[in-house]
């Protein structure tokens, strides 16, 4: 399994988490990317963006109330 890329977008509000995700995914044909966010809005926005780009999306709730959005292709 290739390396996991982790992007910490906690504390940022839209559109920045999506922009950070876009940057992380650019040029990536496949892989495993994890985006950390702290609001449901960011979770939804990042998930929608990644789904539109053909990534499989999974979400884990974190102990601090945030979310780990796991993207795989």
């Amino acid at each position: 399994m290739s390396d996991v890329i982790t992007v910490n977008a906690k504390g940022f509000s839209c559109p920045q988490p999506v922009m950070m995700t876009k940057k992380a995914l650019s040029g990536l044909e496949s892989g495993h990317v994890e985006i950390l966010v702290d609001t449901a809005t960011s979770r939804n926005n990042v998930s929608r963006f990644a789904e539109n780009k053909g990534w499989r999306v999974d979400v884990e709730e974190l102990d601090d109330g945030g979310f780990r959005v796991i993207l795989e292709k």
Partner: protein
Amino acid sequence: MDKVLTSRQGPWIAGGLIGLIAVALAHFGNPGNMGFCVACFTRDIAGALGFHRAGVVQYIRPEIPGFILGSFLSALIFREYSPRGGSSPAVRFGLGVFAMLGALVFLGCPWRAYLRVSGGDWNALYGVGGLIVGIFIGIIFLWNGFSLGASESNPKAAGLVMPLIAIALLALLFMAPKFGDNAPVFFSEKGPGSQHAPALMALATGLLVGWLAQRSRFCTVGAVRDFLMMGDAYLLKGIIAFMITAFAANYALGTFKPGFEGQPVAHSDQLWNFLGMVLSGLAFTLAGGCPGRQLIMAGEGDSDAGIFVIGMLTGAAIAHNFSAASSGAGIGPMGMHVTIIGLVFCVLVGILSRDRG
């Protein structure tokens, strides 16, 4: 219902309902094409509290505390209440001030800009054009690394300040105390401030819209931003539905009156209609959302959005105390000055607030 509201089609439903409610509120007493106007309503609240003394625009609009409390309750119920803050609060205060100043040069926030077009006020087309240009300038800054920095999680109580202010405003509305001769609370006897739907109806619709917008993330600025920036039409659906239902309701009620002249609470100085909204659109984009969205986020516990709202309240006082607000007769003597100062402020914020990480 929640599944639908938070689905990909949610904005169609939320936006459509909000458009219908807006026209209904104007029908039941709010000023023309002003079913909802976050800027005008916040300005009226500033007047009611005596922060400015423009006698025709003083009323505690229950829609505004309704938005905050509707969002607050929705966020609590759906476990999305999350107190946070600390992302350049002073800058956000300034953006709130200038977003309001720009909106009062045009005479409406983005919500009302769309509502004015839906009611046939073609002057507002210049405002919507300015809004799109302002948002686009904001996008250029975002593309170049603009960021106000990350916020941090705050103690639970930190998110209660704005809901408590909302409750205090409602108490002042319904109890209507007088704090002395020629002292607040003021309620306009003529002019737009005297025109309002019944208070309980307005409060109920505010709560309803607060819930709808909290669930669907309805945002009149984010809609254009996401579409122009990423081709993401999710939020744009909300605005399209909002304008279609508002137009249909206006048409059905006979309040669709196409033209430039004689429009309610509007002027025909097109250059400043345009530039006022360039300023507003830019300030809202740098702050991350339209004024309605700021109220909703404030209800969710976002203190940075709360500071922006306090900035708007201050901007309203400045607009009227320093003769910068427009009226039906045209722009105020200082309208041009504050617009230009505001644009310079926003451009400096856009250039200087960079995330170098």
